């Protein structure tokens, strides 16, 4: 068995760009604090039984999700490896214009699976040369007009009329969000992304 990945990846001289693995950032610390505070509140309200009940339920959920997370990671890695990077940065990069935003939107809308595919794939696209704008269009499109969640959850719960109406209204949002993202990005980072 491999030992857990250290935060600093050994540098390899390869043509394929590698995603930087993140050290524990303040986002994770914030989440950990939020969880600790919530767990304490549950303990004070429901006692140790309440804490254990949630823990068992969530561990079960975790076990169920784990294989899908692995599949999502593999998907992201294969995409990073397979997609021609010059082509991606041409069609989804900072200079890809409206066409790039539309491609990102279409890609997000047809992507199968759930968050365990959408985010690894989006991260892979960022790695191989898509800019923030096109990636925002993709993520927002997946969450707003992707069929997966709409068919599985929204249709049965909110009904066909409402769901279709909501999706039609949402259609312009991914492109607009991507465009706004680009607009803000070039003003925030005029010299390109800081690393």
């Amino acid at each position, binding site marked *: 068995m491999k030992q857990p990945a250290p935060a600093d990846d050994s540098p390899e001289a390869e043509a394929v760009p590698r995603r930087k693995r993140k050290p524990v950032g303040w986002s*994770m610390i914030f989440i950990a604090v939020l969880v600790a505070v919530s767990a304490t509140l549950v303990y004070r309200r429901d006692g140790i039984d309440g804490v254990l009940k949630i*823990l068992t339920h969530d561990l079960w959920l975790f076990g169920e999700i784990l294989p899908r997370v692995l599949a999502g990671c593999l998907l992201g*890695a294969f995409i990073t490896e397979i997609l021609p990077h010059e082509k991606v940065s041409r069609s989804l990069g900072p200079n890809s214009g409206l066409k790039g935003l539309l491609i990102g939107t279409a890609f997000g809308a047809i992507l199968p699976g759930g968050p365990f595919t959408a*985010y690894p794939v989006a991260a892979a696209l960022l790695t191989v040369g898509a800019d923030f704008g096109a990636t925002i269009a993709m993520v927002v499109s997946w969450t707003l007009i992707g069929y997966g969640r709409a068919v599985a959850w929204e249709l049965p719960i909110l009904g066909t009329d409402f769901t*279709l109406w909501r999706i039609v209204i949402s259609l312009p949002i991914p492109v607009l969000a991507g465009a706004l*993202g680009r607009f803000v990005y070039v003003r925030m980072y005029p010299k390109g992304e800081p690393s």
Partner: protein
Amino acid sequence: MTMSALIIDISLWGSVLVLGIIAFRRGRVVVVSAAREGAMDFINIVPRIALGVIGSGYIAAVIPPEIITGWLGPDSGWLGVLTAVIAGGLTPGGPVVGFSIGAVALKVGGGSPQVIAYVVAWALFAFQRLILWEIPFMPARFVWFRAAVSVPFPFLAAALAMAIGKP
């Protein structure tokens, strides 16, 4: 529900297989190195997902859905939209909770633009999805940037809903 889970798993592993075959045709080394990279990502991400999944149960337990439903009363107008957007971001739990709250709000007389704003805001910002999924997989700077840039759009959706009218 088990049926949709099965479909998700089949389409997911099917996509992995297809991409794996494409990679394999580029050569064995490509597959092996990609699979290794994917596995390393997985090992790296598991603790983050664990914290999110196990932690979100506690966060959800201290924000009962009834509180959120209360925020989505029949208050029409832009104040109602603003409350709906905040409620969407604060809604704990998965899609069942989010959409059910929207359905309840429609039943108890919530306006359609407000419910649209709620559903769109939930899709864009539900903090639990951000914490559980988006931050572990994406660069944190991207996630915050994406969320900030998305802020106007639930309001835009509500405005469009008001302009177009009910279905």
